[in-house]
């Protein structure tokens, strides 16, 4: 199976694939969250107030849409309880965050409606399917093509040349979006910017998807758009019907957008973490059986998103703190994933830690649908990085890698300039 990945180094990428540019476009500050979260570990597990206020930074999440109080949930146990109790801590908060741009999607729905919609695509994102169909059909070929390009020279910006194009290419190819249009589609779906630009972009993306859905309805191919337009969804009464065009389109928008952005940034964080811990990178290079636990550790240590929001549906008490229905709660991954009661020396990266559950991909009914695909893409990419780039090290003549992006949302490296001996 051939693949055609986007060569971003040669394309006009606009403000795409620079987490700082994305954050600035959204009006967010870009400070590293972890020094600001440090003091919260010594306090109570649940605190009244917005997380940004506790950290001493300007608001990034807009909670003013809601009239109720605002709380920050900080400890592992408290965050776990909130994630696992979706009847109390619901995703209704996304009605104001994602619904205006994406319509009703898995993000803002809850309960049976969410479950029935999620069941449509669950089989296509389970590990056995991502290890098989996604990896064999798309990921391996895309990684090979990208590394063939990278190994034509002895230096690269792995953010632009690997981390950004790989997930975009894999997800686009898996959906059946022609590679020539993948970058334009990604640009069109960018959620930040002026409202008229966003509306224009969404109209472009909708037009492209409508055309592809109509084609696949008549002539199905082995891709996800074909699967979506022919998929059954269960009604509330247990009967089955086909997804509407509108439902299929929203589904595609969400997955393509989420699938491209999150994996790009998290893969960049992972490569940066390994290059900054060369002794651990060497251990992993020599023993690939550690790959899964290494990824589990890096995503614990530095998830691309620092906090998620939930809406408090009913009066409740969490860790002794009363919360009224109508409140909004921050679930802070940044503190929960470094909870001193759960991990020894949690601020340190240690890929030899025994794998343990954390919240980088959320948890509970709304846990990230594409998390297994994301891990699989990162595993294949890191394996190729070790096999194809000998003596991999930071480029001493290029700007050093720094983590940027919004303090609470969408963190990742701005660049990853490396030097290596190309291996073919």
């Amino acid at each position, binding site marked *: 199976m051939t693949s055609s990945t986007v060569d971003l180094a040669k394309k006009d990428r606009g403000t795409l694939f620079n987490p700082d540019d994305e954050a600035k476009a959204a009006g967010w500050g870009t400070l590293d969250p972890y020094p600001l979260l440090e003091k919260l570990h010594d306090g109570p597990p649940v605190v009244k107030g917005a997380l940004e206020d506790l950290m001493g930074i300007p608001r990034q999440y807009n909670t003013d849409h809601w009239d109720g109080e605002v709380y920050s949930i900080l400890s592992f146990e408290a965050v*776990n309880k909130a*994630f*696992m109790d979706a009847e109390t801590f619901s995703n209704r908060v996304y009605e104001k965050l994602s619904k205006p741009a994406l319509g009703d999607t898995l993000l803002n729905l809850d309960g049976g409606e969410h479950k029935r919609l999620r069941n449509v695509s*669950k*089989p296509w*994102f*389970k*590990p*056995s399917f991502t290890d098989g169909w996604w990896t064999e059909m798309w990921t391996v070929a895309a990684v090979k093509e990208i590394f063939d390009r990278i190994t034509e020279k002895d230096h690269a910006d792995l953010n632009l040349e690997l981390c950004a194009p790989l997930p975009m290419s894999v997800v686009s190819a898996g959906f059946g979006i022609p590679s020539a249009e993948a970058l334009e589609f990604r640009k069109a779906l960018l959620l930040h910017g002026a409202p008229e630009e966003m509306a224009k972009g969404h109209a472009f993306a909708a037009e492209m998807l409508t055309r592809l859905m109509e084609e696949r309805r008549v002539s199905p191919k082995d891709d996800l758009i074909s699967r979506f337009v022919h998929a059954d969804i269960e009604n509330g009464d247990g009967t089955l019907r086909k997804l509407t065009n509108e439902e299929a389109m929203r589904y595609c928008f969400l997955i393509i957008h989420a699938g491209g952005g999150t994996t790009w940034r998290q893969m960049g964080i992972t490569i940066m973490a390994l290059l900054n811990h060369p002794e651990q990178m060497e251990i992993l290079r020599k023993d690939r059986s550690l790959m899964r636990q290494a990824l*589990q550790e890096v995503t614990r240590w530095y998830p691309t998103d620092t906090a998620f929001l939930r809406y408090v549906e009913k009066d409740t008490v969490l860790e002794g703190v009363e919360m009224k229905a109508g409140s909004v709660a921050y679930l802070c991954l940044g503190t929960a994933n470094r909870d001193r009661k759960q991990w020894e020396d949690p601020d340190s990266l240690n890929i030899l830690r025994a*794998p*343990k*559950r954390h919240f980088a*991909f*959320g*948890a*509970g*009914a709304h*846990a*990230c*649908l594409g*998390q*297994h695909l994301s891990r699989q893409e990162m595993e294949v990419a890191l394996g190729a990085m070790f096999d194809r780039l000998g003596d991999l090290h930071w480029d001493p003549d290029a700007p050093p890698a720094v983590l940027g992006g919004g303090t609470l949302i969408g963190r990742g490296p701005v660049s990853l300039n490396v030097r290596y001996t190309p291996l073919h």
Partner: protein
Amino acid sequence: MSEEPAEKPAQYREYACLYCGYIYEEAAGDPENGIAPGTSWEDIPEDWCCPHCSADKDGFEQA
């Protein structure tokens, strides 16, 4: 998979999904997905997956 409770083991166990926190309780089973209450972890078919995040059985650990 039968919806009838399987033979009750001496002590029911719980298994947690490493990736999303879902707890499989042997006592409760997963009837919505064809796993009867009382089904022991070992008797769950290998193609069963986490009802929340779709992780395979090997993504679980005993809680």
